[in-house]
């Protein structure tokens, strides 16, 4: 047993897992509010990261200005995508809408490669000190920041849904669109807002990942990892998505540990979540907290 390596990996897993959780949360938000399975979630994250990178390096904006600017941009971008692309698709079969998001992800992915190139770009350093001492463990500052930001996002989201009026409107829409509409909620606005919030939250995650690892088109892999996380937690449960993300993050790193110590297969951590995904679909398809679909005729 290599304990310190294991602990390092577990911390790593927790950090990555909370990020997965944040992205999965924004994925579930769109699914819950608009019934759209968004295959372009990873690209939203990537766009946020690239925009922030552009502001910081090209325009030399300080981080504390560039970050809010990015978020404002992503908020507008989310609304734009919903209004221009997804709104005309309302009422179309659900599989058409899914295919539209697949198309969107292709376009975004390729357009970003076209604009920013395929090479990873380092992010300008945000913090002065590289590592902090926590309970005798040397942990990188960016990890602490990442964890803090993720938890803050989750708490903010929880507050938004529990306490704010808009959150309530969103929950009502998710529960039943027609009833919500008859109570005076503008379902159109709720849809747009769901995309806006989802894009913004994903962008925060994107910037955090970018600060830790640099920006590259590989970041959109987070959008794919969302599926195991969201399925594990239950496709329509925000809390479940967070938990699912953390579990998937930890699992990846445990797989990495087992792989490097015992099996030596290589790359096990990348593929392990997908095996878990298939397993969950076999045993408990509605996830840990998802509502079982019971239809009334």
């Amino acid at each position, binding site marked *: 047993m290599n304990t310190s390596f294991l602990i390092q990996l577990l911390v790593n897993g927790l950090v990555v897992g909370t990020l997965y959780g944040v992205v999965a949360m924004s994925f579930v938000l769109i699914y819950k509010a608009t019934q759209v399975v968004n295959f372009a979630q990873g690209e939203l994250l990537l766009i946020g990261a690239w925009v922030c990178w552009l502001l910081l390096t090209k325009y030399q904006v300080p981080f504390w200005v560039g970050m809010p600017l990015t978020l404002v941009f992503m908020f507008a971008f989310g609304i734009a995508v919903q209004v221009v692309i997804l709104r005309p698709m309302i009422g179309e079969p*659900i*599989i058409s809408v899914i*295919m*539209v998001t697949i*198309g969107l992800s*292709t376009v975004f992915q390729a*357009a970003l490669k076209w604009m920013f190139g395929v090479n990873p770009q380092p992010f300008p350093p945000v913090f002065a000190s590289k590592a902090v001492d926590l309970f005798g463990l040397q942990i990188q500052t960016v990890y602490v920041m990442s964890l803090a930001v993720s938890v803050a996002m989750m708490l903010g989201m929880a507050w938004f849904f529990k306490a704010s009026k808009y959150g309530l409107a969103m929950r009502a829409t998710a529960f039943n669109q027609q009833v919500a509409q008859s109570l005076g909620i503008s379902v159109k606005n709720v849809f747009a807002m769901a995309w806006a919030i989802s894009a913004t939250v994903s962008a925060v995650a994107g910037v955090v990942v970018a600060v830790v690892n640099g920006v590259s088109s590989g970041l959109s892999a987070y959008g794919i990892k969302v599926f195991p996380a969201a399925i594990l937690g239950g496709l329509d449960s925000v809390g479940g998505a967070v938990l699912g993300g953390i579990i998937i993050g930890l699992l990846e790193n445990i797989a990495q540990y087992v792989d490097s110590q015992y099996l030596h297969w290589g790359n096990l951590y990348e593929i392990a979540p*997908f095996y878990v995904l298939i397993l969950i679909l076999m045993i408990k*398809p509605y996830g840990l907290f998802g509502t079982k679909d019971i239809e009334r005729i």
Partner: protein
Amino acid sequence: MVARSTIPAGDFRTSYAADTTIFPTKTSRNFAIAGVILLCFAPLVFSEYWLSVSIQIGIFAIAALGLNILVGFTGQISIGQAGFFLLGAFTSAYINNTYAIPVFFAIPLAGVITALVGLVFGLPAARLKGLYLVIATLAAQYILLDFFSRAEWFSGGSVPASANPFSIFGYTLRGDRQYFYVVLAYVLVCYLLVTNLMRTRDGRALIAIRDHYLSAEIMGINLTKYRTLSFGLAAFFAGIAGALYAHYQLVISQEGFGIERSILFLAMIIIGGTGSIMGTLMGTAFVVLLPESMEWLSHNLKGSSIDKALALNNNITFLREIAIGLIIIAFLMFEPDGLAHRWRQIKTYWKLYPFSH
């Protein structure tokens, strides 16, 4: 995904047999037969380049056909078609190399094996509603590709696997000109098979599930059975197409068969028309010819001011992907029935010419 809507007035049928016939008129049947006969002469006239393009269209059209059964007729999505395609390619090469099964039999066998593997992934999801299958096939795509990169005994790992050329009765087919006929035969058989499948009880069950699965279940259609069946068929045709591809290329590597390729298969049927068998062929031709024509266009624009401003030639791969993505979105938004629908409209227009509506 609406069925034929532009039947002109006065065109009516009086029996079920006439309603489900493949060719509504004698002329259309004659045209189809004449088209096939003309295609038989294609290898004599086509240049090497056009021959290889048409072989590619044929092979991909079979895989897209399988996907169309799933998406267009049963209303489920798969984004693992490229993974199954590759599985078929490796399987056919493997059983041919290892067990000395002739290529002639290895190709259908590869289809069957691919279908069985597909069921392992599809079975859990087929019990559930549409979007779960998308996610399961997404996992399948990654797991299969990961497996191919590990299993050196099966797929050569990082080294491309080799496959034998197609042979029949001890006679080995060499070159594109002879292989064209193999692909043509397979395309014909597969398309006839599926067209006929859709005229049977099972085909109607699939369409009923797509249109309203609850009503279908109430009418006694076993949802799990038919969803599984259609997913198995999708994987089967992907496997066949992959096997054909393997014995065409003679070298198989997993390069270029990632998730983008699966999306490309999806693009083929969306552009052609989901739920249209002939549309699949049109969509495949469109998707295969699009990059070729873009290449041609960017080649012609080389050195012009547009080229310099956008750096077209350096970024042609990205532009191709953008074009594919945009076309998927545009077709879904503006022409959800695809090229097949356009084609029917053009035909109706000429049928009634010059007194159209």
